[in-house]
């Protein structure tokens, strides 16, 4: 009896979980569906008629593609800068002792806990007070600012989980500091840095609130969608949304496959008796 009850309890939780997952995935399916839709009017959000036109001509509204390209440029620059700054900070935090550590931790943690609205408006207040014209570069500055903390946290997690004895072994075998870093430390930390960079890019590409306050007349993809939602959304927006989703999914699939293969390769190395190829 109690076993039956527990069986039911198991299925009950799983059932609710699958319903919630449905709630989480429904909008993506709608976006994918709408990318094949020919809307009846500019302001209609309802499904009307199947068409492939949106996919054949994703840039029919050229403003939108300009905005996508601009978002990618901003995302790439912000990713490179924030990954560099954040990785250096993560190394200092994990590997070195210095004065002012707790203050610095606060400075890194606070941007992640502050509402975007507050960061966006305060940067706007600064740029206006300093007379800095707003546009492409103020967006980049803002994006680097909120990405750095996430990079630090991600790289730090990878670094502190690393076995220091591998580096000590390299040094004991007369590798120079640089060689040790180049051949041991960097390859081991690289997955963390790559993950941090991907996170930074996706944060930057998708940011609306902070960007909206600091963009001037520059239009990024989220800002284009925001503006278009008042004038009428071109269906190609859903093409971009679907394409983003598919690309991200492929990236995740590829990294998890690589991880599995690497683990299997490592097992094979361990299983092979020493001295044999």
């Amino acid at each position, binding site marked *: 009896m109690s076993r039956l009850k527990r069986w039911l309890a198991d299925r009950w939780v799983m059932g609710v979980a699958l319903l919630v997952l449905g709630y989480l*995935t429904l909008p993506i399916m709608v976006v994918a569906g709408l990318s094949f839709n020919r809307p009846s009017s500019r302001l209609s959000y*309802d499904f009307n008629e199947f068409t492939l036109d949106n996919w054949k001509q994703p840039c029919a509204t050229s403003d939108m593609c300009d905005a996508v390209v601009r978002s990618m440029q901003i995302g790439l620059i912000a990713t490179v800068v924030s990954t560099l700054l954040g990785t250096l900070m993560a190394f200092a935090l994990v590997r070195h002792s*210095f004065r002012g550590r707790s203050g610095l931790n606060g400075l890194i943690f606070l941007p992640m806990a502050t509402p975007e609205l507050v960061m966006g408006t305060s940067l706007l207040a600064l740029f206006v007070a300093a007379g800095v014209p707003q546009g492409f570069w103020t967006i980049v500055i803002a994006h680097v600012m909120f990405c750095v903390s996430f990079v630090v946290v991600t790289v730090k997690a990878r670094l502190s989980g690393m076995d220091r004895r591998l580096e*000590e072994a390299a040094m004991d075998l007369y590798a120079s500091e640089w060689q040790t870093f180049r051949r041991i430390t960097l390859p081991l930390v690289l997955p963390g840095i790559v993950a941090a960079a991907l996170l930074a890019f996706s944060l930057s590409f998708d940011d609306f609130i902070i960007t909206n306050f600091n963009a001037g007349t520059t239009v990024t993809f989220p800002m284009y969608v925001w503006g278009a939602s008042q004038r009428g959304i071109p269906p190609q927006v859903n093409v971009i949304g679907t394409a983003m989703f598919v690309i991200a*999914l492929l990236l995740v699939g590829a990294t998890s496959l690589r991880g599995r293969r690497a683990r299997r390769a490592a097992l094979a190395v361990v299983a092979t008796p020493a001295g044999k190829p």
Partner: protein
Amino acid sequence: MSALAHVPTSAGKPAPPPVRRGRSRLLPYLLLLPGAVWLLVFFAVPLVQLASASLYDPAGSLSTGYAMTWAFGNYPDALQAYWPQFSRSFLYSAIALVLALLMGYPLAYAIAQKAGRWKNLLLVAVVAPMFTSFLVRTLAWKTILSDNGALVGLLRDVHLLGPDGRLLATPIAVVLGLTYNFLPFLVLPLYASLERLDPRLLEAASDLYASPLRAFAKVTLPLSMPGLIAGTLLFFIPATGDYINAELLGTPNEYMIGNVIDSAFLVRLDYPQGAALSFLLMAAILAIVFVYLRRAGTEEVL
């Protein structure tokens, strides 16, 4: 010092790095400098600037310039003018948080404890919504909740909605949108906590005649507290400051404080008021977080 560093420590802690004097002492500061300066100049200094903008003379304008008059009156004025939107922000995000907990806890529990080899796939499904644009996803809810959509039709047929009843442009739509958009932030930390939960503890509880409900209250819930606290904060902070859902799924009747701040800075160009509201929002959120952390940290939560 550098010789000692190579002696393995017995405490199981990793040995400190072999330090070379001179350059090494400066190295951490050099590594930290660019990032720290960036955060100082573009995160900390702007907050100070926002604080001082909130005390500007409200009679000034962007074109004539603002005079610093320590106008503390901006705060009560702004709060009085926009109290409905201010309180609505917290009300909506609180309701959304309750809904998210009701949905997110079973989901996180199922993935952590029941999913077996499907665990990774389900986790990807949780974060998958974040793979595509926030705004595009939110707009998809316009289609789902549309007056001509299947959902509204169904609810009208079973008389949960009147014949002219709507979902879109109502508080329900905004709260549903908030719940949807920030649910993954709640589920992920909760999952991380529940994943470490040893199922044998639950077996022990049931062996000792605890009902499933009691076992949940006495074992599962307390052990998941760190994830629950992190998750509720990661949900609540962005949800309260959000105004995209209110704008796209609601009407001016559902506007939250973000909509007001956005228009204060970008449309009405009333910087002192916008800055005062921004600061009030941050102060209110910080106060709630502080009280919440103290209560959750010091009291045994049932």
